[in-house]
Structure formats: structure tokens, C-alpha cells
């Protein structure tokens, strides 16, 4: 069974540009989460989807970040325009609805904003 996959694995962009990160959860997992780790700091929760609905987006840093999950399958996280402080590793995780404390993580996208 395929795990959680994220694309791209690395992205280097200039300040002011737009970047879109993609996450494909494990098939059948209704819950999808985005987390971020800025260098030297804790991994922080960004938001949580249940199917296509945003259950909790309390961790989204500002309105430059837009997450979508059309059709309740894969999710995208767009940063527009990117700023230097957005650099970090963006993790996606998924879980089944019935056992949502068991999260399966992807390998993350390393984003570098220059």
C-alpha cells in the first residue's frame, strides 16, 4: 500500500514567487493534515481537512497560505507570495476517521525562499 506522498521533495524559489505543494494521502484516509517545521523550531500544526472540508485551520500563519482539498482526495498548499520566513519543511499526514490519533506522515517538502 502506498504511503503519504508529497511533491515536490524540494523547492527553491525567490521571494515574491508562488509555490504549490501537493500531498497525496493514503487511499481511504478522510483526515489530512499539514504541518510545518521552520529551521530550529518545533513542528507546528497548520490545518486539518476532513474529506474536502477544513476542520481546523487555526495554525495557518497568514492569508498568503491557501490550502485546498477538492474532491476530498489530494491536497495542495499554495504560498503566494512567498516570503523568506516561509522557508522550512512542510509535512503532510493522513489518518482514518475512526482512529485519527494514528497519523501517517509523508517525507515532507523542503521549501527554500531566497
Amino acid at each position, binding site marked *: 500500500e502506498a504511503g503519504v506522498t508529497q511533491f515536490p521533495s524540494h523547492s527553491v524559489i525567490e521571494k515574491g514567487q508562488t509555490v504549490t505543494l501537493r500531498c497525496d494521502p493514503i487511499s481511504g484516509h478522510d483526515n489530512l493534515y499539514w504541518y510545518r517545521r521552520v529551521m530550529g523550531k518545533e513542528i507546528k*500544526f497548520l490545518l486539518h481537512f476532513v474529506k474536502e472540508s477544513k476542520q481546523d485551520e487555526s495554525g495557518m500563519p497568514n492569508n498568503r497560505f491557501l490550502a485546498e482539498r477538492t474532491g476530498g482526495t489530494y491536497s495542495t498548499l499554495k504560498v503566494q507570495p512567498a516570503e523568506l520566513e516561509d522557508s522550512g*519543511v512542510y509535512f503532510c499526514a493522513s489518518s482514518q*476517521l475512526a482512529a485519527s490519533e494514528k497519523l501517517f506522515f509523508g517525507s515532507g517538502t523542503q521549501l527554500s525562499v531566497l
Partner: protein
Amino acid sequence: AQTVTQSQPEMSVQEAETVTLSCTYDTSENNYYLFWYKQPPSRQMILVIRQEAYKQQNATENRFSVNFQKAAKSFSLKISDSQLGDTAMYFCAFMKHTWGGSQGNLIFGKGTKLSVKP
């Protein structure tokens, strides 16, 4: 608000020996979960071990075990017979339990970088 503290940024251990990673947390919740995640160089976060706060018995998974002290809000990870493949970042994490199921909002510590030396 909940916080998780890992006071050891880096640790090293000789292969085949035992090492303990520390984690403390702060919460006013009574029902919650605690986790240790491992992040090897491949970067994928892997669940190592999980503990439900209502269970007094410490969780064990093969060479990995925890010392869960609820009153002290301490959740240390012991790795026995360390192997080279255990080299990784280790993150301690907290999740609040809510009725109807947890919401998946993990609160992480800053991590401990463990190096296993041959």
C-alpha cells in the same frame, strides 16, 4: 495551551548500548496521547511508540519503551541495544483526546538528534 519540551538537542550512544531521551509536557487536560516520532535522514516521520494517558502501563515496542510519569508530566523514551539505523531526529509529541475521537493536532517538541556510533 499545551507545550512539549525536549531538553536534549543532541545525544550520542555507542552501538548496542542503551540511551534515554527526555520529554516533559505541560497540559491541564486529563485525557491525551503521547508519541515519539523518528525522523531519519530520509525525512519521513515514523511513529515509534504511542501512549494513552489513561493507561498506567508503559508502552513497549520491541527495543523501544517509555517511562510515562503522568503526575510529573514526563514521557521519556528508552532505546535498548541501539543500532546504527536508530540514528535520527526524535520528536516527542502530545495530542489532546476529545470525545468522538482525537483531532490530529499534534504538538511537538523541538526534537533530539540521536547519533548511534559504531
